[in-house]
């Protein structure tokens, strides 16, 4: 577990590591013509003295008649945010704090780029 303040975390770049689709989402054409939801996961790293890891589940779906990328869970992580007195935030509060960091990242574009790379390297879907 890596303990640091939020300011210390934000002073290091957080970089995309990898992303993937849930298997149930890999053939969205099965729902051709109907609104559907695509889901998956993404992993990000912050390299400091010890690597810090942030991962979360995401969903691409229609919200208010618009296609939106959404984080669907609190992050999975080895990061523990501490306050100015060096005291750990309670774990759930820690995850919510990290979620605000996640939500400030341009993660959808990184996930989209990785998925597009996977698709271009995959054989075409055959019914």
């Amino acid at each position, binding site marked *: 577990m890596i303990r640091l303040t939020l300011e210390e975390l934000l002073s290091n770049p957080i970089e995309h590591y990898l992303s993937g689709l849930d298997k149930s989402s890999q053939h969205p054409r099965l729902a051709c013509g109907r609104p559907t939801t695509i889901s998956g*996961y993404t992993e990000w790293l912050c390299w400091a003295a*010890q690597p810090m890891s942030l*991962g979360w589940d995401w969903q691409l779906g229609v919200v208010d008649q618009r296609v939106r990328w959404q984080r669907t*869970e609190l992050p*999975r992580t*080895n990061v523990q945010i501490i306050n100015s007195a060096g005291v750990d935030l309670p774990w759930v509060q820690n995850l919510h704090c990290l979620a605000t960091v996640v939500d400030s990242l341009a993660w959808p574009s990184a996930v989209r780029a990785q998925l597009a790379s996977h698709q271009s390297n995959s054989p075409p879907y055959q019914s």
Partner: protein
Amino acid sequence: MADMARYRHRVFVEKLGWPLRCEGELEYDEFDRDDTVYVLAQDEEGDVVGTARLLPTTRPYLLAKAFPALWGGADLPCSPEVWELSRFAAADFGSSKGSPLAQFSSRAAIDLLRESIRLSALLGAKKIVTVSPLGVERLLRAANFESQRAGPPISVGGQLLCACLIPTVQAHFAA
């Protein structure tokens, strides 16, 4: 023990294809010792339908020997308050419902994990550590188990694995 070893062989060797050394159709390894603690789930006929293994981190354990890189560079746990959970499975081969590979999506799997956590607490653990595929970590979260990572996930044999810490006092137990 033989029934458990046979069940482990079916799950980990036959179904999941893990390259484990076995004695015929029995799956044992060096961490099956006299001080190893097992949690077994059995059906009404007494057949094993779930298994979990608990090891104290004060003696050799799987994570420390086989997957130290998952610990993120920090000192590996060696404490009577930290136990390791491994060989966890809750696949009911006799059930016609669902996939036999469902580890955490079944009620039985959640109950087995809850009992494993409860037992480890009785043994003095405040946390259990486990090496999990990324998908299992996600399912832990979906089942409302609190867990923390020790480090970033690493690809091992083509599968993303991470080391997770699960506190033995879980908020959802109080619900």
